[in-house]
């Protein structure tokens, strides 16, 4: 499968302070790369640079083999999703999803069809006319997804999208995302600080820490890596299990 996103030697400084150092990354089409990173790791900056909302000091970004360093964010077809759902407060659920389609000047009937289909996929058809302040956190996150996916972006960047949700809603959203990703054949970068979520969501795993990124060759490599934290988790549960006896 071809590579959709390639990052070479990317660096970013904030004044004198290096935020990102020598980042290298390769994402294949229709794959989801989970990035384990906590706050302060530079993950948000990296995602913003990829989306074109910020510029790097060094290095290059390639989308489908083409260098997009100087491409305006409107033209990159890369959507960046915040942790908060950020639905447009003056538009209802339907209009929020339709936003990108209206910008592309699609016909009214095409918009209606695509948006309604998306609402169905998200199981939100009943809530189409509701305003954002009438929806729950999980519902808003669904609409936020729908809005991003309906315009069929080349790449989706998700910055801890489920961080603000409770455990049950979180699990539901993880399942929903996996379904939609497969259905719409999405390529995505999924950033999270939660170990389990990273393993569940991505087909590939990487870790970003203090501005440096490590992309593991496979999940197995990740599990076996001393510093990935997986071993500690497993030891923890094993210890509990043996104490119980």
């Amino acid at each position, binding site marked *: 499968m071809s590579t959709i996103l390639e990052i070479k030697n990317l660096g970013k400084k904030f004044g004198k302070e290096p935020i990102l150092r020598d980042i290298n990354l390769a994402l294949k089409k229709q794959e989801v790369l989970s990035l384990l990173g906590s706050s302060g790791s530079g993950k948000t900056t990296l995602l913003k640079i990829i989306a074109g909302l910020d510029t790097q000091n060094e290095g290059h970004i390639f989308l489908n083999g083409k260098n997009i360093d100087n491409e305006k964010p*409107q033209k990159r077809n890369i*959507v960046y999703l915040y942790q908060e759902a*950020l639905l*447009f*407060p003056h538009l209802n659920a339907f209009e929020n999803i339709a936003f990108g389609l209206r*910008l592309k000047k699609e016909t009214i009937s095409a918009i209606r069809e695509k948006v309604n289909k998306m609402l169905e996929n998200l199981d939100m058809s009943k809530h189409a006319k509701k305003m954002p302040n009438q929806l729950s956190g999980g519902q808003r996150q669904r609409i936020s997804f729908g809005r991003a996916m309906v315009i069929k972006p080349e790449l989706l960047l998700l910055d801890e999208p489920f961080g603000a949700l409770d455990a049950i809603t979180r699990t539901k959203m993880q399942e929903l995302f996996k379904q939609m990703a497969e259905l719409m054949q999405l390529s995505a970068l999924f950033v999270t600080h939660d170990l389990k979520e990273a393993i569940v969501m991505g087909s590939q795993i990487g870790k970003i820490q203090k501005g440096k990124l490590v992309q593991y060759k496979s999940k197995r490599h990740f599990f076996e890596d001393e510093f990935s934290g997986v071993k500690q988790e497993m030891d923890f549960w094993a210890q509990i299990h043996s104490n119980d006896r």
Partner: protein
Amino acid sequence: MKKISLIFFSAVVALPVCSGLVYASLYSLGIVGVLNSGVTLENWSIVIFGSPFWASIAFSLYVGIISISLSLLFALFIALSWRKALKNGMLSTVIYLPLCFPATVMAFFGFQMLSKSGFLSRLGFSAGIIDNLNSFPALVNDAYGIGIITTSVILVTPFFVILFTNLYQTEKISEYKELAITLGASKLELLHKVTLPILLKKSYATICLFVIFVMGSYEIPLLLGRQSPQMISVATLQKIQRFNLYDIPQGFAMAVLYVLIVVGFLLVLYLKNRNFFQAETHYK
């Protein structure tokens, strides 16, 4: 203790207006007052079916809407174009300076600027644009309320600049703009599909309130307006204070009508905009 608070509140807030309305109604109906000759609907019919009152209301509405519209235009331009300078820097303090100027001072200043013998006229003369006092256009005491509108705009615009600057922050417009960019929006689309709708929707109720404020303003039209049409506060007061005793009941009728109109306005605003009066103290 709580009961006392509630009673005190109701007394201070509702009593003056209600009791005042009672008196004003009684006076205008001829039941009390210097000329009380018994119940008569004459004053009310003069006011309601005559044109001066409605001309006043219409003129006040016209001044209110034009002033606020112009202020919004300027304020949005300033708040959005000069966002950075307004956040830090000299402009962020200087913009508060006009808030120190009350309507009285603005009215006086406006008159000194815009009248035929005012500063602008003198500048025009020195620059050779006009050759005598009377050639200067009538900007105050004129039929279109230009002086009133100009001064009101100067008074109100800084307030909206500060309002929009604050709203821009609290409503996280930058983040919405970034989101919309990645969805493909151009700069122009950002302005009229994201920034303006959010700012205006959020400040809608405040804007309506300001129209009511300008409509009811007194000092500025007092100095800068003319006999007819007059804005409603000036018109009402004139009726009350004139030597013609027969005008006084009409003045009271006008006052009552004005209060009813404003209360009506307020109710409509409330019904259409419950969010505005909502708060985080809702106890169910």
